[in-house]
Structure formats: C-alpha cells, structure tokens
C-alpha cells in the first residue's frame, strides 16, 4: 500500500529533479518549468502531510490541515507563474534569446 | 524691556519664532508655488516674488533677533535664557530644547544680519532658478539658527545637518566651473565627520543612561548631574580579567574630528579653498558662516564641555594645529593670485586664531575667541562680498588683472581698505579685541604658541595689505579697469550694514564683552565641575539595583 513515506519520497524526488534542472539547464523556459516542478513537489508533500495528520487533527482539534495549506500554495504558484512569465516574455523580447546566460542584468 | 509690543506668546517663544521664520517663509512660498502649479497651471511664483518675500522673511528674523532676543537678554544673567522646552520623544529623552546665552547671542545676531545681506547682494548675480536659491538660503538660515540655539545634542546635530544640505546645493547648482567636484567634496568630507560624531553621540547617549538611569541628550542638566559621556568603561572578560576602555579620548576625538573638519582646522582644511572658489559669492559668505557656527561653536559648546579631561590632554596638539593653521593660512594666502582663494586662506588663519583662544581654556582666551568669531563673521562676509563686486564687474578674480582700482572706484577701495585692516586686527576695529584677548589668554598657557600666533598675524596682515596694494593702489594699468563703476547705493548699504558693527565692536566693545563674560564663566565652571567626575563604570555586571549607587569614582584620571 501507499504509505506516507512513499508520498514524501515522491515529493523529495520531484523537488530534487526540479532543483537540478533549475540549476543546470540553459533554456529560460525550462528553468521556469523546473521551478514549477519544485513547487509541485511542495504541494504533494503538503497533501501527504494532510493525510498523515488527519486523525490527530480530529482528536486534538489542532488545525493541521495540509489541504488548506496546499490550496494556498497553488494560489501562490499561480501568481508567481504569472509574474515570472511576464518577466520572461519581456526579457526574451528585449534580447531575442532564451538563453539564461544572456539574462545578466543583475551583473555589476 | 520687552520686545517692543510683541505679544506674550511671541515673547515667550521668541527663539522658536526666530528659528522657524526663515524656513517657514521658504516653505510657505514653496507651498504657494506648488499650489499655483497644480491648480492654475502656472509655472509657480516668479523669482522676484521669491526674492522679495525671502528678503522680507529674513529681515523679519533680523528684527526678531535684534529686538526680541537682544532686547530681552539680561546681561548679568547666568546660564541660558529664553529657554523653551517641549517634549518630542520623551521616552528617549529627546526634547525640543532651545535657549540662548552670551556666547550664542552674538553668533545668532551675526547670522540674522548676514543672511538678508546675502540675499540683497545676490540681486543681480543669480538669474535663473532664483526661487531655488532663495529657498536654499532660507532653509540654511533656519538650520544655522536652530543649531546655535539648540541645547539638545541630537537637535543640534539635526539642525547642523540641515544647514549643510542647502549649502551643498547652493555650491553645486550656482557655482563655477568645478562646482560639482567642490560641492561633492564639501558634503562628503563633512558628512564623514558627522557620521563619526553621530556614532559618538549614540555612545554618549548609552553611557549616559548607564550612568544616571535616564535617557537624555539634553546636555545641560541642572548643575552637572545627569551629564553623560565622561565615563571609562570596564568590560569584564571571562572571569577575572578586566579591560578598561577609556571612552573619553575616543569620544572627544570623534566629536572634535567632525567639528575640526567643519571649522576647518589644519590638516583637514583642503576642501575649503576649493569650495570657496567654486561657490557663488553668496555661497562663500554662507559657507564661512556655517563653518564658524557649526564647527567652532560646536567645538566650544559640546566637545570641550562634555569631555574636559580629554580636551585638556589634547590641548598641546590642538594648540599646535591652531598655530600652524594661522601660519599656513597666512603664508599660502600671500602667494595666491585668485582673490577668493586668498581670502579663503585668510579665513583659515583667522578661524585658527579663534580656536587658539578657545583651546586655551582660559577666561580671556575663550572670550577673545568668541569675539574673534563674531568679528570674523563680519569681516569675512565683507571680504567675500567685495570680491564678489569685483567678480561681477570684471568677470575675473585674478589679481594680475586688477590694480589701481582706487581711481575709478574710490568708495570700494576705501571699504576694502577698512575691511582688510579689520581682518588684520587693528584697534578701533572689531578684530583687535579678540586678537588681544586671545594672545593674552594663550600666552599664559604656552608662550611659544602665542608668539607663533603673533608672527602668523603679522604675516596675515602683510598678505592682506599686499593684496590691497595690488588690487586698489598703484596706477591703473589695464584699460578694462578704467571705466569701472563704483558701488551703487544698494551695495553701499550692504557694506555699511557690515561696517557699522565692525566699528562698534572695535570702539565700544564693553557691552559685548559684558554679555559674553558670564556665559563663558559658566562654561568654564561646567568644565571644571565635570573634570572631577570621571567615574568608572562596569558594564554587563550591573544589576538593576546597582544603578542606585554603582559608580566607583576614580580619581587622578588625566586631571
């Protein structure tokens, strides 16, 4: 059966995949996608935690409801995605390139 | 006698009115200007309106200073008069605390007199951005007056910084070719010093709390209780070892540094000649005023009284720097061809002389120093304005382009001659009283320094007289000088307004001396009292109950 450990392991795997991709890929859109992957991992972990502590929540009336947190997380992801894509589009428009090496505006 | 019909509210708050009238006028004009811009689409108030109302505002301040402050000043009064105190941040001990005493009285009058004259003198010189110019000058005046009258350390700091920003802008916007560099150096150099003193101020603040349990920056307590900053701090390190950090010399050095930059004293003076050269005439006059007030007054009022032991220890060094300043200023002034640089170096010499008197920590020296500061304010303003007259007419400040100006401009030459003599310290004019008293006071401390100062003064006289000879005497060699027009009635009235006090102080100095003396005596008394308290405080060890009597008094520390 699928236990909590599995869910957490999946989350970790997804997170690492996303991190590695964000750090090593050259294409801006792919980097952005990898960041989204990291977010997805977080959401999965939250859902898993919700299932994990569900019994305890009812008994101790402690509101450890991961699902709510996950919802909030998805909203944040959506907002971040909008902003990130906007920045991306403007960058690409200005530089005609989707290479991350060309986005050096923060350089001295 | 009261302030000639001013109501009781005004009389009770004369000093606040005085401080804020110029700034208030400026802000009011700004508000009107902005309102016009927004609501009526006009381009703001025209420059001439600014100038007229600005002149009126500063003139009103002069009136308040002369009638309200001087009139109500009690010559025999001890301590500060017309004191106003209003809570600002009471939990932190920061109040709006102003008061005037004999020392600040005459500097206040000087400021109130010179600023309207500056506005008057710039009648033809500032063409564009007249509104900004008037705004800057008025804000500067508020800053200066506030600094002079503040009795709260942080308030003094705030007003001093307030006065420096408009100065920077005046030099930077209205100055000559190299104005950007000059103004940037001006502001950065003095800001560096003031940041250091801000840190010291905060340390004083903290130490004061440790010592007395009260957060305060009102540097005058009642008598000498509640005065911070004199303590040596013992810091226990891991058990038995104790490191003693002598705070006084460091704090004194920090404060003295920032004031010494502003005065300026050798060797921190190099920003000044450049600033004067690049500044417009009005800027030079205001610059010398700011220098002397924030720098010299601050040194006297705060640095010496808060840290008397360190100050006494530092006297040999400070004396040497002062004497060297006089000599250096006089000698370098002699070889300058640019008139403004010449006058700037002469200013260095005169200010160093005043500081010599101040550092002598003697009654005669201190009184002489105050009088010399007032005299310096008058004579250097006159000198810079005279140079401005030449610059306006001939578009040059090079001595070799001038010569024989007494023929086409005799009144100008006469006024220049009198001013030069006043700067050189001739009796009957204001410079003499200060010089004599300073030499008298410093001689008792270190005869060689007094001698060196005297030699420097002779050299200064030579430099100024030689300048006068090259500018005004002799034949008229350059054709352009022949047709120069003499001073018109506006310019004459400006110089008259400066020469009358110069003559008055020289001929009849006693009223002035009489009013300064009690305040100086009080200052010296405070110095003496604080010299004896140099407690050692142990940090990080004190329990709350220890604050009642935790202080071990040490003795023999540098007294």
């Amino acid at each position, binding site marked *: 059966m699928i236990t909590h450990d599995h869910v957490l392991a999946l989350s970790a795997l997804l997170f690492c995949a996303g991190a590695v991709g964000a750090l090593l890929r050259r294409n801006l859109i792919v980097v952005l996608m990898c960041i989204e992957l990291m977010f997805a991992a977080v959401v999965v972990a939250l859902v898993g935690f919700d299932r994990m502590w569900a019994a305890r929540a009812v008994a101790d009336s402690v509101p450890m409801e991961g699902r709510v947190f996950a919802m909030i997380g998805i909203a944040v992801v959506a907002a971040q995605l909008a902003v990130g894509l906007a920045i991306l589009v403007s960058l690409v428009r200005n530089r005609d390139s989707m290479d991350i090496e060309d986005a050096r505006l*923060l350089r001295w | 006698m009261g302030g000639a019909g001013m109501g009781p509210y005004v009389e009770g708050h004369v000093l606040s009115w005085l401080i804020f009238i110029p700034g208030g006028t400026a802000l009011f004009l700004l508000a009107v200007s902005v309102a016009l811009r927004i609501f009526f689409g006009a381009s703001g108030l025209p420059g001439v309106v600014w100038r007229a109302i600005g002149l009126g505002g500063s003139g009103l301040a002069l009136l308040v200073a002369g009638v309200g402050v001087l009139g109500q000043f009690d010559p025999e009064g001890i301590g500060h008069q017309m004191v106003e105190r209003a809570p600002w941040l009471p939990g932190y001990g920061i109040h709006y605390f102003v008061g005037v005493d004999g020392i600040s009285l005459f500097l206040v009058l000087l400021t109130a007199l010179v600023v309207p004259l500056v506005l008057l003198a710039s009648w033809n010189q500032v063409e564009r951005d007249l509104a900004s110019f008037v705004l800057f000058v008025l804000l500067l005046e508020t800053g200066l007056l506030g600094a002079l009258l503040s009795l709260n350390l942080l308030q003094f700091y705030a007003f001093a910084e307030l006065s420096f920003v408009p100065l920077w802008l005046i030099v930077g916007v209205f100055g000559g070719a190299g104005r950007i560099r000059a103004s940037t150096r001006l502001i950065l150099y003095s800001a560096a010093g003031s940041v250091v003193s801000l840190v010291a101020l905060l340390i004083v603040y903290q130490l004061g709390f440790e010592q007395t349990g009260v957060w305060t920056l009102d540097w005058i307590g009642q008598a000498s209780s509640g005065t911070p900053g004199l303590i040596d701090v013992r810091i226990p390190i891991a058990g038995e070892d104790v490191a003693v950090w002598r705070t006084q010399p460091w704090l004194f050095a920090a404060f003295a540094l920032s004031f010494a930059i502003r005065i300026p004293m050798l*060797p921190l003076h*190099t920003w000044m000649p450049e600033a004067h050269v690049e500044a417009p005439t009005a800027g030079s006059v205001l610059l010398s005023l700011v220098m002397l007030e924030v720098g010299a007054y601050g040194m006297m009022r705060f640095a010496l009284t808060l840290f008397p032991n360190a100050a006494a220890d530092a006297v040999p060094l400070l004396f040497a720097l002062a004497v060297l300043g006089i000599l250096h200023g006089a000698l370098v002034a002699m070889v300058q061809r640019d008139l403004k640089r010449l006058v700037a170096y002469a200013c260095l010499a005169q200010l160093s002389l005043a500081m010599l008197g101040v550092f002598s920590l003697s009654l*005669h020296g201190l009184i002489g120093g105050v009088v010399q500061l007032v005299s310096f304010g008058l004579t250097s303003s006159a000198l810079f304005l005279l140079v401005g007259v030449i610059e306006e007419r001939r578009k040059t400040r090079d001595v070799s382009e001038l010569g024989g100006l007494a023929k086409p401009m005799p*009144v100008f030459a006469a006024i220049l001659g009198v001013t030069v003599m006043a700067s050189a310290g001739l009796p009957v004019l204001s410079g003499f009283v200060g010089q004599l008293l300073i030499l008298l006071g410093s001689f008792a401390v270190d005869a060689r320094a007094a001698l060196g100062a005297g030699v420097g003064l002779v050299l200064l006289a030579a430099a100024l007289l030689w300048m006068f*000879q090259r500018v005004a*005497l002799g034949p008229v060699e350059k054709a352009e000088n022949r047709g120069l027009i003499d001073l018109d009635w506006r310019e004459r009235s400006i110089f008259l307004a400066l020469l009358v006090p110069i003559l008055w102080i020289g001929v009849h*100095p006693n009223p002035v001396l009489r009013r300064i003396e009690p305040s100086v005596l009080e200052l010296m008394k405070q110095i003496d009292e604080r010299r004896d308290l140099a407690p050692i405080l142990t940090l990080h060890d004190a329990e709350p109950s220890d604050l009642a009597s935790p202080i071990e008094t040490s003795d023999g520390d540098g007294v």
Partner: protein
Amino acid sequence: MLSEVTSSFLRFIPALPLLTGVLHLVSIGLLRRRLSARAVTTISSAAHTGALLLSILAFWELIALDDNAALVDRVGTWIGVGVAPSVFTADLAFRFDALSAIFCLVVAGVGLLVQVFAAGYMEADQRDDRGFQRYFGYSDLFLASMLIVVLADNLVLLFLGWVGVGIFSYLLIGFWYAEQVSARAATSAFVVGRVGDLALVIGIVLVFWTLAAAGSATLRLGEIEAALQAFDGVSFALPVWLGGHPIAVAVIAGFCFLIAACAQAAQLPFLLWLPGSTAAPSPASALVHGACMGAAGVYLLARLSFLFAIAPEAAALMAWIGVVTALLSAGLACVETDIKRVLAYSTATHQGFMFLGVGAGDPTAAVHHAVSHAFFQPVLFMGAGVVIASLRQEHNLLRMGNVGSRIHLTRICMWIALLSSIGVPPFWSGYFSREQILVAAHDALLIPLHAPLYVLALVAVGLLAFSVVRLMYLALYGETRFPGEIRMRIEEPEPIMLRPMAILATLCVLGCTIGLPQAWADLFPFSVKDSDSIRRFLAGVLTTSAVEQSPSSWSVSGQVVGMTVLGALPAALLYVFRPELPQKLETRFAWLHGLVANRFYLDVLFERGIVQPMLTLSDRVLGRWLDQRLIDGVVVDGTARLLQRLSDRVLKHTEPGTIQLYLALMLVGGLAMVIWLLRAGGAA
C-alpha cells in the same frame, strides 16, 4: 608713585583733531561733499589750536601742583574682562604728567605749525586736486593718534594710538596712491610697523601676566611702576638650543618694547622702510619724521625707563642699536642724492642718538633731544618741500643748486635749523641735548663696553654734520644744475608757509633755555638760575641711572664740537670751493660709494634672502605640495581612489549576475537553515 589729580578736559586734547579728522573723511567718503579749502583749513586749524591751548592749560595746572603729581582724566571703561586676580581692564583714560606734558605740548604745537604750512603747500600742489581735504583728514587723525599715545593712561590705549600712528602714516605715505612707488612704500612701512606692534603686544601681555602673578594685575602706567618689584626674580628659561639659561622677564619685556620702538623710529633692523617713506607729501614728512613717529618710540622708551633700569641687557642693546643706526644712516645720508631721503636718514641718526641716551641711562637727555629735534627737523623738511615744489617736483640734489638766493628767507630758517641739527653751541638747543647724550654715553654705567659706544657716537656726529651741510650746499648754493628758465620763476613761499618755519626756527634758538646745563649757565656774566629746568621737571617721572650728572664735562663738549666742525668743514670745502672734487672721489672710491649708495645692499639682501624664499616656500611647499599633493591628493583623493579600487577589483565580483548561482546559493542556504533549525529544535 605720582599722586593723581582728576581733570575733566584732557580727553578733548586728542578728541578735537580726532573729530575734525573723522569729519573730513566722512564728508568725502560717505557724503561725497567736498568742503572748500578755506573751510578745511579753518576747521583743522581750529582743532589744533584748541588742542594746543588745552595742553597749555593742562600744563599750567600741572606746574601749580606738587612736584610728583599727574592729571588723570578717566572717561570710562573701554575693555574690561576677567575675574580676580587677572582682571584685564583697559580704560579710556588720559594722563598728563611731566613727560606727557612735554611731548603733548611739542606734538600739539609743532603739529599746528606744520598744519598751517600744509595748508599753503597742499593748495599749491597741483598733483591731486581731490586730495586737499583727504590730506587734512589723515593728518588730523595722525596727530590725534600721536596725542593718544602720549596721553594714554594705560598700555592698551597707548597701543591703540600707536597703531593709529602706523595706520595714518601708511595712508600719508601712500597719499598719492596712484603711484606705484607710494603704494609699495606704504605697504612695506605698514608691515614693518606690524612687526613692531606685535612686539608691543607681547610686551604688554608679559607685563600683565607678571603683575597678575604678583597679585596686582594692571596696565596703568603709574601702577606698573609702583608694582615693579613683581618683576624680581621672575624669569623664563631659554630653550635648550639657545643655551638654556634663564632670562629675567623684565629683560624680555624690555626687548619687546625696544623692538616696537625700533620699528616705529626706523632703527635697525627696521631701517629699510625709511627711504620709501619719503614718498609722502612734504608736510606729512615734516610731521611724521619730525615730531611724531620716532618721537612715539622715544616716548615709549622714556616712559618705561623704570623698566629698563632693571633690565640692563635691554638698555645696553638699545644703546648699541641707537649708535649703530646713527652711524649707518649718517653714512648713508652722505651719499644719498634724494633731498628728502637725506633728511629722513638724518632723522634716523637723531633718533639713534635718542635711543643711545635712554639706553645709556639718561632718558631726560633723550627727551630733551626729542624736543629739539621736533623744532629743527620739520623746518628742514618744510624747506626741502619748498625747494622741491619750486623746482617742479625735483627731488634729486644733483639737479638742484643755486636756489637759495631766490628764497633767502627760507634759506635763513633752514640755516638756523641746520645749526641746531648739527649742534653748534651756544644758542641752539640741538647742541645741548646732544651733548648730554654723549656725556651719558661717556659715563654709561649700565653698559659694560661703553667706550666704543662713545667713539662711534662721535663719528656719527661728524658724519651727520657732513651730510646735512652737504645737503644745504648742494640744494641752495653752487651752480644752477637745472633749466635756467625755472629759476626766474622761483619765489619766496607765501607767508602762510613761511611763518611756521620762522616760528620753529626761533624756537630752535630759544629752546636752549629749557635745557642749559649749569656749567654753561655759569659762563654767562649774569646769573641764570633754573637753567636746566627740563631735567628737574622730568625728575619725578623718569628714572635716570647714569652716573650723576657731572655738571658738564668740558672734554666731552670739546670733542663733540670738534667732531662737528670736522664734519662740517670738509662738506663746505667740497661742495662750495671744490665742487668737482666729490665727483672725483666717487670714481676713485667707486666700490665704497656703490656699497653705501645702495644702502649696503641690505634691502636687496632682505628681498632675496628673506622675502623671496618665504614666498617660494609658501607657494611650492605649503600651497602646492602640502595642500594639493599631500593632503588633497594622497589623503582625501587617495581615500576615494582606494575605495574605488576596492569596489572595482574586489567587491564587484560578488555580483556576477548569474541567476543560477543565486539560485544555488538560495537552496544551499535554505538547506543549512533547515538543518540548523531541526538540530536546535531537537535539542530544546
């Protein structure tokens, strides 16, 4: 200590010329209205006459009092600062005792006469038509300053007058300011004066602190004398590199006052401003050199004679300076070709004698000589002025000659003055005063090596005689060395100019009555009592420390007269009987002549050796190197450059701009934080 009697009118003596002087200057300066020449002269003369009359009145009152008394008029406090025991008070107060009386009368009287002369002279002078009222403004104020000096009750007020004398002589020397020569001369005179002023201030400060240490801080003249024992035993130690032994404060103070007086009286080492000062208009020269500037120096020294009595080193130096200056300037006068400069040098010679007198311990003789000097010297200057004006501003003696017969009244006055100057007994006052000085030098107690002093003084007497006689002959006699048609138009000056000269010349003769030594008086067939009245008059005020006055040492008198003749005769011979001889002598001794004519190259030495190096030092070292390169360049700009380089080389590399690097850092950092939290949370 003299007893003091209050008076209420002394203040008007200097106040009158002060007021008129200010009036003149204000009216041309501020009001731009010129008064007519008549109005100006009337106003000024009235003021001077008033001052003179009041002086006479004060004198009358004074001699009616006891011997040791003084009139004091206190107007109010001028500067009052301090708490006990060092209260520094300088009152506006005037003092009229025997010494001030003499100087006051002389200054006021001679001043009036010169002023009258000036009224005529300046009007005739066409150089500057705007200058008439300005001249009177300056000279009135000059006179007022001088009166303040001699009437001051305390040293600070004296200093005020002293500097005033300096300022107004500056303005008078530079009167024709449009001429480069005048402007330069005026500036150098003033700067030299400033050095003297500094010395005077140091002296005042020294006196004040010494007295304050003994509990009686005062600067009033009478009180200083009374508190003199405060100086006993107080000494400064010289710095190690000068020997390290102590010098008494009295001696240092004496040096200071001596230096101040030397600067004012153009003694060495301040001789250099004197030649230039002749750029002043002639009446101004008469006033300045004749009655005032040197007199101020002598007055100061005489006034402080009590101090010099306990400072023998200073007195010795004073005597030596006096003698050497006298010798030097007499020598310079012998070859000088500008008529006014010759007279200026002779003034310095006479003042050298006066300094010798005070230094040798006989200030009365010096004062006596100052009085005589004030009688004859202005006449010579005025006469010179007449000659110059007649010859259309010709100053050079070599281009004069044979003028005397056209202006014989002037010539007579000048001869009378000359005889007084070179000192011909028995009727001329100049002789007796000088004889007494030389007697004092002969017998000087204070000075260890006084024999050479005496000898040198004699030589100076001779040279003085030579130079002045030479002047007379070159200017007034001999052949006409200027365009002939000018000669026809030379005429006697107007009475307004002639009368003052005549009055002064008469005083030269009559003046001997105040100082006739008893030995001479005994020569007269009829008994003359009270002959040496000036000495008795001043006895209470001045401190004499020479050997008690041997009535008259005939050997000294003989030597003096002998030297005078020895000096005068060759001059007469050379310039009257063998006029070609001077020229030949000049070429034969060209090197000597060149040396002396160029003032021993002293001024060149000063210029090249002191002034130029100082200016170069100030420019290159202080101005450029120190200020611009070192402080500005290295420290200030250097700091800025250092910070810039720091940012450029080091700090900017912390901002590479690579997004993935930032991302990696964030992840690593986040991870570290999480681990730390877990461990800390676990431990808690």
